[in-house]
C-alpha cells in the first residue's frame, strides 16, 4: 500500500493539515512537521511541539494519522522530537502573511535571542501602525500575546517569538 504513495505526496497531504489553534496555516508551514520517512510498510512522521505544554498536541497527532489513513496508508507512526527545539523563526514567509491576514501579528525573526525583541514595537496586523502597546504577554493560547493598536483602536494578538 505504502509503495504507491511517494514521500512528496505525503508532504503535500500534510501541508493540508491545519494548525488546530490557527486554522489558516498548516502544520508544515508552521515548521511543526520535521521529517517524513517510510520504513518497511510504515510511514513515520516526526513532529515537534511549539510550546511544551501545548494542549493541541494530541489533536495534531490524530489529525496527521487521519490524513494519511485517508491516503490509504495503513500504518502511520507519529513521533515527537524535541531536538532541535521548535522556534518561531521556522514559520515560513507564506505562513507569516497568512497569520497577519488572520489578525495575528507574526513573531520577529530573532535568531535565537528572544529577549532582544521584547521591547521592539509590534506592527498592528490591521493598519500596520507601530503605535501599539502590549496589554498582556500571555493570551488565549500559550503561543499568543495581546496588544492594542492606538492608531486604529483595535485589540490584536501576536504570535509570540519562541
Amino acid at each position, binding site marked *: 500500500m505504502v509503495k504507491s504513495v511517494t514521500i512528496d505526496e505525503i508532504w503535500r497531504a500534510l501541508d493540508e493539515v491545519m494548525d488546530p489553534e490557527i486554522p489558516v496555516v498548516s502544520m508544515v508551514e508552521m515548521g511543526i512537521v520535521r521529517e517524513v520517512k517510510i520504513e518497511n510498510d510504515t510511514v513515520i512522521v516526526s513532529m515537534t511541539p511549539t510550546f511544551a505544554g501545548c494542549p493541541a498536541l494530541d489533536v495534531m497527532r490524530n489529525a496527521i494519522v487521519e490524513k494519511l489513513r485517508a491516503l490509504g496508508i495503513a500504518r502511520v507512526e507519529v513521533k515527537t522530537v524535541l*531536538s532541535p527545539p521548535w522556534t518561531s523563526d521556522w514559520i515560513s514567509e507564506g505562513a507569516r502573511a497568512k497569520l497577519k491576514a488572520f489578525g495575528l501579528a507574526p513573531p520577529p525573526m530573532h535568531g535565537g535571542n528572544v529577549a532582544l525583541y521584547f521591547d521592539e514595537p509590534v506592527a498592528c496586523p490591521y493598519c500596520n501602525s507601530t503605535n501599539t502597546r502590549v496589554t498582556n504577554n500571555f493570551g488565549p493560547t500559550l503561543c499568543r500575546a495581546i496588544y492594542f493598536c492606538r492608531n486604529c483602536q483595535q485589540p490584536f494578538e501576536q504570535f509570540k517569538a519562541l
Partner: protein
Amino acid sequence: MPNNSLANKILSVADDSFILGHRNSEWAGHAPILEEDIAFANIALDELGHAQLWYELYQELTGAEPDRVIFFRSAAEWRNTQLVELPKGDWAFSMTRQFLFDVYENVSLERLVHSTNPRVQEIATKIRTEEIYHLRHTSNWVKRLGLGTDESHARMQRALDELWTYALQLFVPLENERELIAENVVPDLGILRDAWQEKTVTHLSASGLQIPENIDSVPNLRAEHTEHLAELLQDLQQVARSEKFGVEW
C-alpha cells in the same frame, strides 16, 4: 547506580514544576484582574508541560508511567519542595513564590542546557525560552507591587518573609547528587544558590523589599511535607482513584 541518582533528581524537578503548576491553576477564575487570570493560567499550563517532559524522562529511566506517578502516589512519596505546595495565599504570595521559583529555574536551565546527558540537555533547551517569559512577567509584577501602594508593599514584604526560607530548600542537594555533578549532568546547587541569591536580592532590593535576615531552619528532606500537600493530592487524585472511573486514566 548513577541512573538511580538521575531518576531521583529528575523526579524532584518534575514534582516541583507539577505541584507549582497545580497551585497556579487555582487562580483561574480568581485572579484580581482578567489579564492576570489569563497570565497565571498560561504559566500554570507551561509548568505542567515542563513537568510532563521531565516525567517522560523519568519513565525512560524507571519504567514508571507518568499517570501512575502523578495520580497514585501518597504525599510522602512526592519529592517536591515545600515551597511549591503551600496554599496559593494572596496574590502577592503567589507572585513572590513564582518569582523566586522562576529565578531558580532560569539559573538552573541556563546550565542544564550544557548537561552531558543528552535527554536532560534537550529538555532544558526546549523549555528555557518559555521560562524567560515567566521571569519577565513576575519580575515586572514584583517591582510594581513592591513599589506600589503601602498595602501592596506590605503584602509583598509579608510574602517574602514567609517564603524566603522555603525557597532555600531548592538548593538542598539530594542523596548522591554529587555523582551527577561530578559527571556534569546537573550543576552544583551551591553555585546555583549563589547565582539565584545575587539575582533575587538585586531585584527585590530594587523593588523596595527587605531580604529576611533570620533564616529559620530550611526544610531538609523532600520526603517531608506540610499538611497542605495531602490536601492538594486529595483534590488532584480523587477522580483517578475512585473505583467508578477505574484504572484506565
